[in-house]
């Protein structure tokens, strides 16, 4: 029926079940190589303010990556990234595929930059152990990939303040550890999946085509 938010109760639970069967079984076929990962990121992104100027790959003593700006390692003297936080650096370009070599990454925060293109559908096969993914306040477009449901350990998914379109995938209901979720201020439409019915309105505001209980709008005219 035109102009209404459809009830998606049964569909939601079925999708949840099928997603549960396959969640967490994503494995990468590449070997971890965090140096390759960061070299690739530096080469792919434009860095007009030189915020990554201390990213030098010349003197490669063990654990040197751990001193690079935005990098936290799992342990001292081992080049294995725990988190990458490059917030508010005017970085532009698209999310680079070389991220897949940082397989131990738990936190990826690229918020408040000028990244464009889409949220890659493969991001959860690149980084299967992500706990926090913050791509907010960028210039990302396209839809939210349903494959984000493969990031089984995701606690925080922040995609607000972009130009994401399409609907919020039902499959995101399969993210059993999700605590913080925001898609505010995008161009999303359609029904908010039922699993988010108790979320705050703030997480969905600024999407004129979106409807659902958090927005107090079950029927859209």
């Amino acid at each position, binding site marked *: 029926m035109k102009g209404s938010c459809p009830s998606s109760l049964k569909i939601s639970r079925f999708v949840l*079940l099928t997603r549960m*069967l*396959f969640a967490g079984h994503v494995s990468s076929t590449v070997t971890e190589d965090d140096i390759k990962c960061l070299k690739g990121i530096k080469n792919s992104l434009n860095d007009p303010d030189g915020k990554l100027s201390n990213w030098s790959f010349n003197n490669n003593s063990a654990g040197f990556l751990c001193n690079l700006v935005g990098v936290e390692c799992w*342990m001292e*003297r081992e080049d294995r990234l725990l988190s990458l936080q490059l917030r508010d650096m005017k970085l532009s370009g698209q999310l680079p595929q070389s991220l897949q070599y940082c397989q131990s990454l738990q936190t990826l925060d690229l918020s408040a930059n000028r990244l464009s293109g889409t949220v890659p559908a493969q991001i959860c096969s690149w980084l299967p152990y992500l*706990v926090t993914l913050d791509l907010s306040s960028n210039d990302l477009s396209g839809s939210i990939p349903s494959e984000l449901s493969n990031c089984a350990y995701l*606690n925080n998914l922040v995609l607000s303040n972009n130009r994401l379109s399409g609907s919020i995938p039902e499959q995101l209901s399969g993210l059993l550890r999700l605590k913080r979720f925001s898609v505010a201020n995008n161009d999303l439409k359609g029904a908010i999946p039922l699993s988010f019915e108790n979320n705050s309105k703030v997480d969905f505001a600024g999407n004129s085509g979106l409807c659902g209980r958090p927005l107090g709008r079950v029927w859209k005219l």
Partner: protein
Amino acid sequence: MERLISVCLWLILALHLVLRVAGNAEGDALNALKNNLADPNNLLQDWDPTDINPCQWYNITCNSENSVTRIDLGNAKLSGKLVPDLGLLSNLQYLELYSNNISGEIPEEIGNLTNLVSLDLYLNALTGHIPVTLGNLRKLRVLRLNNNSLTGQIPMALTTIETLQLLDVSNNQLEGDIPVNGSFSLFQPISFSNNRLNYTLAPPPPPMPSTASTSSGNSAVGAIVGVVAASVVLFSAPAIIFA
């Protein structure tokens, strides 16, 4: 009047002596640690138990009240054992003893260090269990016990530490279940890999090429566990749909 003055002077002297002794309690605890460690590089040679306090000692940091807040002895080629006296350092925030060759068990008295924010004992030769008392470390943010020979289970008490942000118990011989509740929602298979834990929903990651772990068939075992887990979920499907 003279009597009053002399009484006051004696009291001040006595108080001074008491304070000197009290100030040394932390120095005594650190000295007990020094006596239990082998220190081939002589890093601890300036740890002098007759000092008023240990605040000038190598790699010891104190606060403005001369109470120890940090022990930084990572990568120091130390061996020997930890001591229960460490539990007396009530203002300790950082216990950094990683990448040494320290053996023996983790003293349960470390659970008394209620100001601890970082406990790094990784890359040593520690044995025994993870003390349940570590659940008392209500301000702990970092707990890295990886790359030791710890056995037993992961204490559920750790899941109640709300401040915990980084956990690594990988590369040990821990068994039992992996908690996923409370703060452990933040931790994924990497934190638990290379143990004897019950890996249910997801297989642990393959061994990292750069670590010195000698595990072999984890991936194959993990795949089999994954298929079994999927079958279990499939058979419980009706219950989930109609719940």
